[in-house]
């Protein structure tokens, strides 16, 4: 069992009468890359700020390395934050910015100079010592802010949507760089983002938040392939949703009535008359496959969108619009063409309705 570096117990936060965080419990392990994912206003940044000590805790406890820090001043917490706008000190050089934390700890000047050099090397900014923040590009400012935080050797590094101000290409390369940096240093990262794509590529575990509550905590693969709620399924990735009622259950298969069609799914714990959501990812939808007997629907192509690496099809099946995706452009479909749509029975994600409908 890995060591718990950060423990959050029964955390609550209210701003005035508005409850932003409702009973949040989480253990974060040493060396883990954990992402707090959620739409804006779900409270993810608030949780981060409470860990850093920048926002007060209304109720609950936070422990860093088994030491309670719930009411401790930020300057005594062994965590550092990368702010969304980097928050570099505008009147200090890159060197002074990076050395700030050590200077506050009254570390010897020579040692600071040497450590700053190491940090500049780590983030590939050698020779930038005397530059001012405003002379740097967004990506460079980002690196300085990472160096400024990491020089303090924090037990946990908190990152508040650090890549949101960068352009698409730079964002992709910084994602990779951050991930490598984290692996190399073995520091625990808590990363806040609203981008499911960032969460899926970088994290060891994802915490999906909804209205100040944990919706699901899991590895990227599990959370994408086995979401335990419709919200999770729809938040991460695209999904085609069929809602229906169980009509027949046998040992292997269950039949579900969806509108006037009957879909077949694997039997699990379903009972007759259960209300089910059947979710299918676009990449699992198969088009015009021969020798399929079950779950074959007929539809008409409404739109075909080619984006380089893949092609996306919008297919109208009766009243429903289904999105499908395949790699490249080897099979060309034209608008208005009639195709058959099917999927492998084990690819369907099935959820019981009353689990989340209260």
């Amino acid at each position, binding site marked *: 069992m890995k060591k718990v570096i950060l423990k959050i117990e029964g955390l609550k936060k209210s701003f005035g009468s508005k409850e932003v965080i409702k009973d949040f419990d989480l253990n974060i392990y040493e060396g883990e890359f954990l992402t707090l994912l959620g739409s804006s206003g779900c409270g993810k940044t608030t949780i981060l700020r409470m860990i850093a000590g*920048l926002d007060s805790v209304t109720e609950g406890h936070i422990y860093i390395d088994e030491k309670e820090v719930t009411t401790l001043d930020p300057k005594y917490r062994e965590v550092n934050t990368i702010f969304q706008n980097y928050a570099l000190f505008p009147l200090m050089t890159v060197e002074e910015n990076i050395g700030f934390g050590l200077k*506050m700890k009254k570390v010897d000047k020579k040692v600071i100079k040497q450590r700053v050099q190491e940090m500049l090397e780590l983030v590939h900014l050698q020779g930038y010592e005397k530059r001012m923040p405003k002379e740097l590009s967004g990506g460079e400012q980002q690196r300085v802010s990472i160096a400024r935080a990491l020089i303090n050797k924090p037990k946990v590094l908190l990152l508040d949507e650090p890549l949101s101000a960068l352009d698409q290409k730079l964002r992709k390369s910084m994602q990779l760089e951050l991930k490598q940096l984290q692996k190399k240093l073995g520091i625990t990262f808590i990363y806040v983002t609203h981008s499911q794509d960032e969460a899926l590529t970088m994290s060891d575990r994802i915490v999906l938040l909804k209205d100040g509550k944990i919706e699901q905590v899991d590895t990227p693969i599990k959370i994408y392939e086995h979401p335990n709620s419709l919200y999770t399924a729809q938040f991460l990735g695209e999904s085609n949703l069929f809602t229906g009622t169980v009509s027949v259950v046998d040992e292997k298969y269950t039949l579900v009535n969806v509108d006037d069609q009957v879909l077949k799914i694997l039997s699990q714990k379903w009972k007759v008359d259960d209300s089910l959501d059947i979710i299918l990812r676009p990449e699992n939808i198969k088009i015009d496959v021969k020798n399929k007997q079950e779950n074959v629907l007929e539809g008409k192509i409404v739109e075909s969108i080619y984006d380089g690496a893949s092609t996306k099809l919008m297919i109208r099946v009766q009243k429903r619009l289904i999105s499908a995706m395949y790699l490249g452009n080897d099979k060309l479909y034209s608008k208005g063409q009639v195709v058959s749509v099917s999927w492998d029975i084990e690819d369907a994600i099935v959820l019981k309705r009353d689990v989340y409908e209260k």
Partner: protein
Amino acid sequence: MKSKKVWKFFFLVPVILYVTLLIALPLLYILFISFLKSDYYGGMISSFTIQNYIDVFDQVYVSVFLKSIAIAGITTLICILISYPFVLAISHKKPRTQKILMTLVMVPFLTNSLIRMYGWLVLLRKSGVINQVLLGIGVIEEPLSLMYNTFGILVGMVYTLLPFMILPLYSSISTVDNRLLEAASDLGASKFKTFFKIIVPQTLPGLFNGSLMVFTPALGYFFITDILGGGKFMILGNLIKNQFLTARNWPFGAAISIVLVLVTCVFIFLYRKLGGKMDDLGGAS
């Protein structure tokens, strides 16, 4: 294109007239008469002399200069000490509250400053409100001398000039991003360190601006020394006023004025040497 230029010039005419007629010409006139001789009847004799400037460096006048600079300096310091906590406190309030509080700072300006000085008289004199209250509750047995001394002058100066420090400091403190303060505390800085390492450097332009706006008038506000100093104290303003109105030695008064302008210029020069920008003083660079 040409007519556009004419129009531009047309709009500038009032400003040009104002600066030339009301600032530049009078100053040149003062400079001119400072090199004249005075006769015994308050008139001026048109013959060139630098005697007036030599007289300024008489020990008596030098001590007035030094005392003025000391009073203006202490006034500036007290204003800084009051303004920083004040603007720091209100910069964290809601925008609406900030507006209300800043308006309150400005309210006293709606009344004539001379009248406000007489108001202080009522508060500070031996039989004044403050002494009466303190005597009444038995804190003191003898009334305190709160005016007709340096204390009274400083009270008047600080009271009158405080807004000139608060306003520029407030506008420069509102440019300090709150996230920088959070970053500093996240990196282990105490409130004290954050203030001196982050807030002060970033509000330096406002601080300089405010200091000049307080220091310069404090050298010359003669009515404050007249009323709250009881006429026993002299600052540069009193000296100049006396030379013009009482001693009727206009050339000498003019010479002192020119020296005062030069002293002010020295402070602005120092300000620029220290890296201050003229823009921050509200002037062109």
